[in-house]
């Protein structure tokens, strides 16, 4: 406490401010939230952030390794503008390997906020402005390229848009289902409660992966990519809600007998009003924590399905799709940079878990006390 003096009067501290104070002390959670905000921003603006589209092929760089960003050139001259050296590709007649050597004669400076490929941001704004490009000549591949010569850096962020949004959309759906069923069961009790409980038990006793597989294999072939995207999201959330529903039900059962609920009821408030105005807000923080911790499950679910080849399909790019293309022995031996999407999955999932931890500790006063003591 002593090293973080409060800047406001203790009497006026709102619960929200208290939570924020406690949260700030959780360093990993702070790092995570910065990381997540960054990556969500990049995913949201991926057309702008990345230099190329998902299908742009560079025949001069097929299976090319990541490029090094340089500030110092061969002659030892320091340049403030970062640059990369172009690749010389040479198919080794002996090994049939595409060998790449940096050619110092081809120096491609990286320009920021420069013009490049045309695209439509969110399908609306027609522009060719990119965060960075190498101008009209040359190419830059920070993460290397895949077997069709496509820029992996670009594909990772386009993939992030899909994978990360599936996490959010899926969790919103889960929340909706969980609160609805949990709330109904907890508030009404009786036969409804028992029915919902049995459904939850059945759903929880089923192994999720085979079930996901069966359901996603049943998605019609002719569905558009957007259809498949929502199909997968719905499948993932269909099996995510029971946990939340249980918790919501438990809370409702406890809250039902609380004084403020009883007084609201005695004052003649309607059921809906009691549920939505009085009961739900009292454990919003708890719900948010649960939701945060559920997002990585969704992301991993999508990744797993796509990795197995039954989730999203090209041309849609997601992290799972990218990893599916990297799932062979050759990649590990010859083009390990194609595993970079896996690194992003790991980092994102960890970040969400740390964030969830931080939130839980911040919200739960007891855990905070424990940490403070």
């Amino acid at each position, binding site marked *: 406490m002593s090293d973080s003096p409060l800047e406001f009067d203790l009497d006026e501290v709102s619960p929200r401010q208290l939570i924020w104070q406690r949260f700030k002390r959780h360093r990993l959670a702070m790092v995570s939230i910065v990381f997540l905000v960054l990556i969500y921003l990049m995913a949201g603006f991926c057309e702008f952030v990345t230099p190329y589209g998902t*299908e742009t*092929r560079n*025949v001069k760089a*097929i299976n090319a390794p990541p490029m090094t960003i340089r500030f110092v050139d061969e002659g030892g001259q320091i340049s403030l503008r970062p640059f990369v050296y172009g690749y010389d590709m040479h*198919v080794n*007649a*002996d*090994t*049939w*390997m*595409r060998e790449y050597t940096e050619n110092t004669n081809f120096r491609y400076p990286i320009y920021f906020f420069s013009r490049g490929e045309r695209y439509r941001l969110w399908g609306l704004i027609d522009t060719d402005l990119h965060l960075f490009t190498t101008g009209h000549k040359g190419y830059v591949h920070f993460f290397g390229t895949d*077997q*069709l*010569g496509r820029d992996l850096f670009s594909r990772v962020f386009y993939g992030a848009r899909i994978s990360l949004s599936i996490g959010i959309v899926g969790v919103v759906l889960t929340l909706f289902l969980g609160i609805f069923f949990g709330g109904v069961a907890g508030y009404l009790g009786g036969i409804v409660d028992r029915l919902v409980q049995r459904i939850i038990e059945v759903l929880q006793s089923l192994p999720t992966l085979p079930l996901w597989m069966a359901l996603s294999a049943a998605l019609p*072939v*002719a569905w*558009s990519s957007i259809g498949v995207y929502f199909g997968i999201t719905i499948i993932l959330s269909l099996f995510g809600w029971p946990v939340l529903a249980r918790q919501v039900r438990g809370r409702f059962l406890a809250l039902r007998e609380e004084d403020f609920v009883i007084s609201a009821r005695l004052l003649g408030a309607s059921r809906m009003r009691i549920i939505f105005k009085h009961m739900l807000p009292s454990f919003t923080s708890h719900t948010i924590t649960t939701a945060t911790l559920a997002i990585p499950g969704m992301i991993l679910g999508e990744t797993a399905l796509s990795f197995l*080849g039954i989730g999203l*399909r*090209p*041309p849609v790019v997601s992290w799972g799709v990218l990893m599916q293309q990297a799932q*062979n*022995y*050759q990649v590990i*031996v*010859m083009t390990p940079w194609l595993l970079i999407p896996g690194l992003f999955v790991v980092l994102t999932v960890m970040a969400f878990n740390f964030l969830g931890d931080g939130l839980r500790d911040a919200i739960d006063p007891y855990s905070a006390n424990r940490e403070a003591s």
Partner: protein
Amino acid sequence: MVRSSISVITLRVILLPVLVFLKIAGVTADQAVLPKAWFEPSRTASELGITKFSQSPILSGLELPSVEVRLGKDPLVVSPLADIGRYGGTIRITRNEWLTFPNVESPMTISADMRTILPNLAQSWQTSPDGRRLTLTLREGIKWSDGKPLVSDDFLFVFNDLWLNDEFDPIPRRMAKGGRAEKIDDRTFYYEFENPNPLMVNYVAQYGSFMFLPKHYYQHFHPRYVEKEMLSRRIEDLGFISWMEYIEACRRQLIEESVDQPTVDAFQIVERTPTLARYIRNPYYFKIDPKGQQLPYIDKIDQQIIDNKEVIAAMSATGQLDFSAFELKTQDIPLLKLGEQSGDIRVLIWNRLHSSDVVIQPNYNYPDKRLAKLYWDHRFREALSIAINREEMNQIIYFGQGTPSQMTAHPSSAMYDKQFASAYADYDPARANFLLDALGLIDTDGDGLRDYEDGEPLTITLEFVDWETPKGISLELVSIYWREVGIDLRLKLVDSSLQSERAQANKMQMTVWHGDKVTDILLPISPLWWAPIQSGRENTLWNDWVRWRQTNGRLGVKPPPIMTQLQEWADEMYSTIDDKRRIELGKKILDVGAKNIWTIGTVGLAPQPVVISPKLRGVPDNGIWGWDNRWTLSYHPSTWYFE
């Protein structure tokens, strides 16, 4: 060896124009490397004056008749690639090679020139002047691995008792229709047909290994030779439902009982478990080397049963297999070459015979009339074809070593014309867009993809099985090229049984297969890529027109005149006894095909990696790989040996 392959490739770079010529006449280039004897009818011991015979040491001490007795009167002499080999060793392969490594014997075989038919089990054959009868004379003294002689009845059994049996083959196969097999004596028999069938000889040469079985073993499981109740009891005891099922499983070496059947091949199966098959040399094998040593040189085969292709590629690269090729692809070459540096394997680069590795097939009879009509429009097919950048595909997938091509005959074929291969094959997206615009396919909803005139999105779903050739990666590129001109192609990977099912039910909008049956041996029998004569899982272009023809108009849909014309030409090509006329008809069919782009080809004649143990000798550095010549048979695997 490594040095020679470098020089070959350097040569290719320097002499590019020469290379084009060599590719067309690729066969002549190969002949220089392969022994001349492989292109001529094999000679016999008496013709070469060989009188002393010897056998592998593992056979001595066994209770067997002497090698002279076992070899028969006048064994066949096969020259090895270079040096005379030595006996011994166990070769480690996977089950997937079951038709490529063990020498599979046929009445006749196909020479490495891909068009000459050479004698093998049969010493001679004759087609009657009217083309209705093919008479075969078996070599004297050939024995099954149990010592019983190979006789005409073994051939008659398969043709008359299996193929013409409506329990075994409910729908008679094309080659058995209207035919029967008759015996003249124990070594002479003929196939006779109602209509002229002069290409039966090609069929026997290519497919002949499946055209005979040891009757003295299999007759115990056939209703014609066993009393019905006893048969069903016997089959039941073996754990099978029907006799057909048992014969099929036993013949294909899928069950433990398979070890009971004798063979005339170089190796006989002696152990079969779910994960392993073991073979040992056939002591009665009928071939010898020029020194009088009985072939094969290698004593044993260990076959592992592995389904996963990744695992097979990894095993091949790390020297865990002594011969591996069937499941390897062009893109695997760098990985294999990396493995080669460790010295545990050698990587040979053969050429696949497929004129196009991927044959894209629009389904002209697809139930959705609007899509079928679009396919039938020449402009649409042309647009799809020229939207593909084949040169780029060649660079990306094949290291520039393939040949961009439409689906046409193999360069070794007398029907080959390079204009057929290059028709509508040049990349021209501007013209593709122009043609699609002219068809009224405009992007109305602004998603960058074309829609029908009434605004309904145009989508094509392509279902495919990813085996033998690099289909997955090729199609990924094709879908990108097509999307660049606004065509929404959706890919769906299916397994082969599902593909068969959906092909038969006519449910696929589009599919692909690899372009084999392109040599003079098979093309005249089944020009299936260019005329509606048969359909199945590999060909789903025109099910209804094929059915119409097969049922004489009872089922299916009446084909348009051009298709009827093609069917007639195909029939005539199949039945004419005039070879010149056949080539002329073949060229006509291919010409119409090239002009009409019935199918869309990509890149063909591509490098095929063949991985062998560095100790394995006698394998040519260069060969042609594919179904038409049964992969390795022109290169005599029985003469391969361990150093």
